[in-house]
């Protein structure tokens, strides 16, 4: 059967469609291969909403769809994880959400605001005011002290938090004057998180933040991210290869070959300390 719908009828779709049904959405024919049962599909109310996002890379005659019709929603103030095999398109999705990349088709809204139509300037302002980004390899400016690295981001934001306090929050109050090269990997990642948090962002996006860290250190970082989410109400999205982490997330989005394979909600996330991987 073919169901006809527009965006505002998602709630209805939830009732109508089943997995394997063709859906004509906004005049386009889509194939529903995922059907989430335990809530959350109600994208209309979602803080972050991806719908049918396509990101196509063209080089020469070849074209690669890094995101091939991605749709999911994220709740405000929750901790979400994006998982999937290498090359699945996780980073692509996160970069789009972070305003670092643009999309070929579809729509992305954050807090009801459409990202697709933003100008270059507006997208930059969005990154500045709403997004904090944490990378696998920290990307600290080597030539600036921990404090200055944090100041670099608070400098450009009006409602920034006090850099000293943020560094204290991540447990680095006594290392503020150190340069990145004088800090351990875990400490550098904390500086990177502090730098992202100092902007007082609505979204904290982390691309494999524990990828370059050992087990214990990685756990510490995850704990920090989780605590930040809970205490500050920041919406945190973490990409990870490690599905062992998933029990701690409120929502897990599984991506495969540029498509969302499943969206699972976790009513009772496990504390990080209890997770073994």
């Amino acid at each position, binding site marked *: 059967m073919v169901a006809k719908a527009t965006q505002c009828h998602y709630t209805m779709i939830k009732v109508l469609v089943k997995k394997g049904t063709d859906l004509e959405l906004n005049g386009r024919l889509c194939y529903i291969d995922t059907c989430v049962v335990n809530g959350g599909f109600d994208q209309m109310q979602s803080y972050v909403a991806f719908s049918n996002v396509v990101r196509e890379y063209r080089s020469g005659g070849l074209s690669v769809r890094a995101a091939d019709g991605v749709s999911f929603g994220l709740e405000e103030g929750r901790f979400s994880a994006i998982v999937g095999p290498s090359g699945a398109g996780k980073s692509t999705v996160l970069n789009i959400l972070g305003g*670092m*990349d643009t999309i070929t088709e579809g729509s992305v809204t954050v807090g009801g605001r459409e990202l697709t139509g933003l100008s270059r300037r507006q997208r930059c302002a*969005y*990154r*500045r005011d709403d997004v904090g980004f944490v990378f696998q390899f920290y990307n600290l400016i080597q*030539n600036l002290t921990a404090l*200055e690295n944090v100041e670099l*981001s608070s*400098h450009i934001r009006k409602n920034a938090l006090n850099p000293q306090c943020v560094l204290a929050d991540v447990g680095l109050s006594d290392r503020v004057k150190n340069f990145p090269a004088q800090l351990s990997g875990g400490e550098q990642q904390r500086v990177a998180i502090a730098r992202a948090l100092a902007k007082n962002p609505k979204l904290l996006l982390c691309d494999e933040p524990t990828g370059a860290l050992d087990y214990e250190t990685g756990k510490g970082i995850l704990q920090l991210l989780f605590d930040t989410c809970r205490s500050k109400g920041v919406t945190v999205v973490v990409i990870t290869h490690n599905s062992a982490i998933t029990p701690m997330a409120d929502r897990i989005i599984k991506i495969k070959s540029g498509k969302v394979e499943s969206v699972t909600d976790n009513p009772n996330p496990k504390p990080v300390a209890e997770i073994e991987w």
Partner: protein
Amino acid sequence: MKPLWKDNLREIWRTKARFISLILITMLGSMSVVGIQAAVIDMRDVGDRTYKAQNLYDIHIQSATGFTGTDVTAVRETSGVYAVMPTYSLDAYAEVGDETVAVRTCALPGELNHITLTSGKLPEKPDEIAIERRWMREGRLEIGDEVVLDGFEPFTITGTVSSPFYITHERGRTSLGNGQVRFFAYLHPDAYSFPVYTDLYIIMEESRTIHQVSDEYDAASEGWKESFEDIYPHWFISNRSDGAAFDSYHQDTQRLQKIGYVFPMVFFLVAVLVSLTTMSRMVEEHRTQIGIYKALGYSPASIAAKYTVYAVLSGGLGGFAGIFIGSEAFPRIISNAYAFLYDMPPIETPVPWGIAGFAVAAAVLSVGVVTVLSVSGAMKGEPAILMRPKSPKAGKRVLFEKIPFFWNRLDFIGKVTARNIFRYKKRFLMTLAGVAGCTALLLTAFGLRDSVYSVAAKHYTEIVQYDALVYISSKPDEPFSNQQLYIREETAQIEGYSVSIIVPEDFSALESFINVGSVQGLLVTEKLARSLDGTVFGRPIDAVVENYIMHYIYMPPEMYRDLFDREPEPNGVLIKGDYDAEELTAHRDVRAVVETERMRNMIGDSTEAMEVVTVVLIVLACALAFIVLFNLTVINITERTRELATIKVLGFQDTETAMYLYRENLVVTLLGIALGLFGGVYLEGFIITSVEIDIMKFPQYIAVSSFVLAAALSLFFSLFVNAATYRKLAKIDMVESLKNVE
């Protein structure tokens, strides 16, 4: 195609901007080295060809008693002599307009000193004359008109000629009138009813095989002159160097040659420095890739080849382009400027392969060697280590931070800027050297122009205070003006310089006509004094006076009487204030009026050639400054893509990102400009002393406007380059740049 070659071509394509700027830098470098020297060579060669084609004399002999046939035979049989031409010449007064002028007449030449007929025909009878075009013009004469020369029957003009003796406006000196020959003319030999020849012109055997405009010729020529002086001591022997024009032509090329050494040297150094850095940067950037090739088992030589090919290809392309443009365009522009001063046929512009080969080889070798060295340096580690990202250079506290007074006054971005500048010392120093070098070159070029330009202005406003010098045959009954000073002027040859000796009637009055200072006694002008040992005519010099054009000795009348044992009969009057030039010229006792204003303009004209040269230098320096700054900025951006991408992710707008980088560039540029202005003063001083002409001393003077202009141009280029690379900054792809590990 081998993968490495494919990689190489792709690399060139990917880094087009860098590759092209490398080409342009080497091109400018080799162009400046080759171009000016090529101009020198071409100008000398045209002299060589012309003199040889004219069978121009090597030695000129005159005698108070003239030469008989026996004399001619004796000279002809002197060893080393190739040809002798006995002939006649005589200086005579002629009336041109209201003026009485001295004219040099020569007999139509035989096998030596070929003249060129420019209109009409040559004299065929004793009462016919061929005159120079200038006389024709100034005397408003036409072919067929009659001219009267003192001591001859009237002549009919048959045509105009140009003479190999006169390649400049200068017509030489005479014992007649004010001492200046005004025009030359050629007569039929039969017009001279002399029993003996007045002149012998000689070509030496040796001369025919040596370059006519060269130091070698000058040295040989002095030798011939001396040997003739030994054999014929009572004759007056002169060579070409004694004819000022030939000498100054050679000197001008020498001057150009000196500019052509010093200026392009600095130029070339800057160019090589920048190419070197560019290549070593590139190798540094490719550390990981080099590791990969090494791990794949490529030999070190084949890996090094990739970068060497890149360097040599850009260096070679640029070098050869520079050679061809330089050896074609420069000589044409420069010789065109000198055409105003010297009457020479058009030059030919072959490529001077000696210098050209040297320039290209030097550029390609130095850049090639450094590339090989940096690649082999980069390849030292095990592939595994190479492929791992290089541990980032640790941040450091800078000296600046230890001075809280400054540090605390900097805002956050200011601190970041200071840190970044001091952290990347190598890049900082290179940019500094590049900008400083270019600014120095600009200032030098502007300064040269100022110096050359200011000669006339300085001499005729600061030194010469009189408004006209009137040559008289005898003291007039009534003074010409209420501010005037009678002088006697004589010329003498001292230390190879032609010097005017000025004897004022009242020495104490001289100071208000010529700025000679308050010392009275034997005064000598600066440049002449430098080649004397504190005495002249066996007397101690009382003071050295400032002077820019010609050489003068001022002495009181008593000293003149003492030295020469005769009265200093006045033959000139210095006049200040208003005068009526026409009335003066018409005056019975006046032979000529030399107006200061006219002299000033004339000298101004003759420095025009130098000005063209300086304009060429300015254009070159601008081009270099531009490309160097462009290259450095591009390197800066490429090297720091990751850092820039990071701050873009943080939400820096394009303009803020640009400012983050430009602040550093700007600070370094400003420092470089300051340093360059400082260095430029020295460079200009060095060059200016090597480009002086005999009769002129160039003041080392750089106008304030030149400092401002040199600084402003450098700054402008810097800003312009930053603006031009803004797009590159804006285009940095955050996702791509941060994707991989360094």
